[in-house]
């Protein structure tokens, strides 16, 4: 399975500001996924990021709020823009296994917006 790292691991931010979360994978992958995990809730897919194309966003998530970059096959960033306390959550990136559909997750970024 791939080894995935995320930066930062946690942050406390003021409302109205933006935070960019980085996700690095130790191998080349076609698709990378970004999830949100709110307290007491299930993981919710924000978007799927393919290298060389625009990210595909799930219902309820928009590019202006969660812009994503995918400059190469091992790296992606998710920006949480114009933050409000409702954005406080854990943000996770993941990749699919080789020839399989299971996903492997990074350690997550715990974001608190005050």
């Amino acid at each position, binding site marked *: 399975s791939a080894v995935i790292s995320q930066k930062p691991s946690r942050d406390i931010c003021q409302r109205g500001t933006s935070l960019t979360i980085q996700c690095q994978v130790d191998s080349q992958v076609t698709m990378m996924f970004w999830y949100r995990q709110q307290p007491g809730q299930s993981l919710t897919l924000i978007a799927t990021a393919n290298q060389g194309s625009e990210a595909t966003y799930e219902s309820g998530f928009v590019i202006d709020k969660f812009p994503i970059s995918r400059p190469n096959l091992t790296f992606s960033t998710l920006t949480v823009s114009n933050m409000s306390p409702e954005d406080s959550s854990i943000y996770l990136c*993941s990749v699919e296994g080789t020839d399989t559909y299971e996903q492997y997750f990074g350690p997550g970024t715990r974001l608190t917006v005050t």
Partner: protein
Amino acid sequence: EDQVTQSPEALRLQEGESSSLNCSYTVSGLRGLFWYRQDPGKGPEFLFTLYSAGEEKEKERLKATLTKKESFLHITAPKPEDSATYLCAVLSPAGAGSYQLTFGKGTKLSVIP
């Protein structure tokens, strides 16, 4: 819309007390069911994939089973280090050749020495 329901929400066991966690699902065309373990402050760790009813997978004290409507994660003689939140997810077609993964809210397991 695909739905995944896990029960119980929380489970407290004495060390050595075997039990089962349940994951019931309603999906249009199940392609796979996954179990994950998540420790506090960490990302989910992949445990098992089950593809068809009747399939079973085992790993140490854990055994996952699948029927057409639900999956069970059986924990035999649990130890305190098995304490974690266990997540279930189902994979189903999302149209245009793509797939979607739907997660349950998880069962928080606490094993008391």
